[in-house]
């Protein structure tokens, strides 16, 4: 029988679409299962596990010195900060006091890492909303940081410069000069970011009011880092649980209350300025002294449970160690920022368009190896 009711004849259906694991917007092997009605997103379900490498299990096999390099392979854009987290937990457990020099150098490098990570994010964010040129601008500035890293420790991305007890070797004699040169250069380049992208009308339209995350939701989903701070939740580990040289340093925690994509964007841009200021205050005050304290060749942590968290470029990275007194941990758990931040995606995007999904997932600054360990 032919139905005559117009709703029946022109019935619409929701459909599924796979975004990823091979898709230009997911920056890695993340699979998002979308339920779409036309262009409007009804549901997003992240499907993980495509690059799970059992890092936590491998940690149970390795010595504490070896664990440090596994962390490079998690959130590779803040490799140095990940290394620091493991080193700090070991040092705290051994009650080892590292020299001031080590703390300051670690902090300078951590902030450089943060700038480089945020710069790359900015380039990719621009690319996701369709402005391809931002990517090249970001890489121009990021190269300078990578050059400093290369001269300091020989690696450009997976640095592995921290060891439990200090640093692998002392900084290069050029280090101070190069960092100063970079800071002077970067201060002239950072305003270009605003000219090219932030102040663009189309960009403002694409991000303002899009992907709203309230403060309550930001807390209940366990988000951290710039994602939570964009919603007005003060959660900077450097401020609330200071470690290394942050204990004595004066800096502002960047907060925005709007909770939308633009707010998260502004937090990261502003954090780059803050990092520049932090490096400027530290670079002339690197104390003299040793670059490490001697540890035993085989480090054995005392029996017990140890936890240390640090602020990576993406948020709060926690390292939880259960030790039975052996040379490797009984169990080691990483609390990665990307995983919790991704969980808020569904809340932020439902009701938006496909174009919004790309902009929103971009401000979450996802690094997939950090989500799948």
């Amino acid at each position, binding site marked *: 029988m032919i139905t005559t009711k117009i709703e029946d004849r022109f019935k619409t259906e929701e459909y599924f679409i796979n975004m990823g694991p091979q898709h230009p917007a997911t920056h890695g092997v993340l699979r998002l299962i979308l339920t779409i009605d036309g262009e409007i997103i009804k549901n997003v379900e992240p499907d993980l596990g495509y690059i799970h490498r059992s890092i936590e299990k491998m940690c149970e096999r390795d010595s504490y010195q070896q664990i440090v390099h596994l962390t490079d392979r998690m959130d590779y854009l803040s490799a140095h900060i990940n290394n620091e987290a493991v080193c700090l937990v070991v040092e705290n457990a051994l009650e080892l006091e590292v020299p001031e020099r080590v703390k300051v150098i670690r902090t300078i490098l951590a902030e450089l890492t943060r700038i480089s990570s945020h710069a790359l994010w900015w380039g990719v964010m621009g690319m996701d909303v369709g402005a*391809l040129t931002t990517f090249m601008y970001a890489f121009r500035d990021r190269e300078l940081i990578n050059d400093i890293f290369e001269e300091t420790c020989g690696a450009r991305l997976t640095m592995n410069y921290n060891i439990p007890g200090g640093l692998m070797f002392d900084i290069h004699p050029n280090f101070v000069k190069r960092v100063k040169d970079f800071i002077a250069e970067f201060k002239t380049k950072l305003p270009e970011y605003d000219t090219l992208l932030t102040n663009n009308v*189309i960009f403002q339209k694409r991000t303002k009011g899009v992907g709203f995350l309230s403060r309550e939701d930001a807390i209940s989903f366990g988000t951290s880092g710039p994602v939570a701070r964009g919603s007005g939740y003060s959660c900077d580990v450097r401020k609330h649980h200071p470690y290394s040289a942050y204990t004595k340093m004066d800096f502002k925690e960047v907060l925005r209350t709007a909770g939308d994509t633009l707010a998260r964007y502004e937090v990261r841009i502003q954090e780059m300025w803050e990092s520049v200021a932090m490096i400027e205050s530290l670079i002339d005050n690197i104390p003299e002294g040793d670059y490490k304290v001697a540890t035993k060749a085989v480090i054995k942590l005392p029996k017990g449970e140890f936890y240390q968290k640090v602020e990576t470029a993406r948020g709060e990275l926690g390292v939880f160690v259960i030790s039975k007194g052996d040379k490797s941990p009984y169990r080691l758990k990483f609390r990665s920022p990307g995983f919790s931040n991704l969980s808020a995606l569904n809340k932020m995007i439902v009701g938006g368009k496909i174009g919004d999904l790309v902009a929103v997932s971009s401000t979450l600054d996802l690094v997939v190896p950090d989500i799948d360990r």
Partner: protein
Amino acid sequence: MTDLFTTYTGNILQMLLIALGYLTFFAVAGLLLVWLERRIAAFFQLRLGPNRVGPFGLMQTIADALKLVSKELTGTERADKFLYNLAPYFVIITALLALAVLPFSGQIQAFDINIGLFFLTAVSSVGVIGILLGGWSSNNKYALIGAMRSGVQTVSYELSVGLSLLTMVLLTGSLQLSQIIEVQKDGWLIVQGHIPAIIAFMIFMIAGTAETNRAPFDLVEAESELGAGFHTEYSGMKFAYFFLAEFINMFIISAIAVVVFFGGWLSPFGITDSIPWLGVFWFLGKTFLVIFLMMWFRWTFPRLRVDQLLTLEWKYLLPINLFNIVLMAVIIWLNLEIKF
């Protein structure tokens, strides 16, 4: 007998030769524009661009084209084979048709019909059928979304292209391209029609960029959202057809802008009027400047979202355009055109 031979066969031969000339131009211009885009993109992005194959990397696109020709033509299972194969031809033939009425100089124009401008807008809007067919028939959800967007976008922005050209037709009183250029011997139309002409030009550039599916209106193939949009499932030469047509369409939109707003093949202030063949140089030179403008857009602006795209057209461009036509009419009525 010989009479028939000379007229009939001669005509066909002449037509074939002209067609061959245009096809050659089509291919060369397409490849050159691809090269140009890559070089200009590199210029904006602090890169060098292709510079290894041939002088200034000019042979790079030819090498790429040869690679595309030699590639296997793949397709999806359960695709609508007939429509899938037909779609690229729709796109490329409409682009080629539009080329036929463009006046490269006073002498070089394949056919100068009295509804030239109308023909151009009509033909350039048939191309969207190819995109719709391609997206629909390839049995891929991403391609389908791209095709849907393309339909919405092209139908909307066609209005603005047509209306902004109509504004200028008020000034010329003719749709024939040679006559439109003839009128401009007293000053280019963008000068003659001053304020409304400048508004019309800006609207034409925005809508023209949208018609050719280029950034910031490249929602049809938005690679960060849809992979490659409507031509996701095309490979080899069929993909190259879509790719080439995009660049030729950009050339056509720029050429229309030059003919209607910047005096076509006329030289500025008539400095080379005594040498007619230089018209080709002026025409291509001005077209290149407009193309550069479009490439500048592409490598600077982020992409709009689909609802913002429609808001821009229906809430802003269309009302402004209608008002602009009235303004132009008033200006002509009061004899306020600027003529030299």
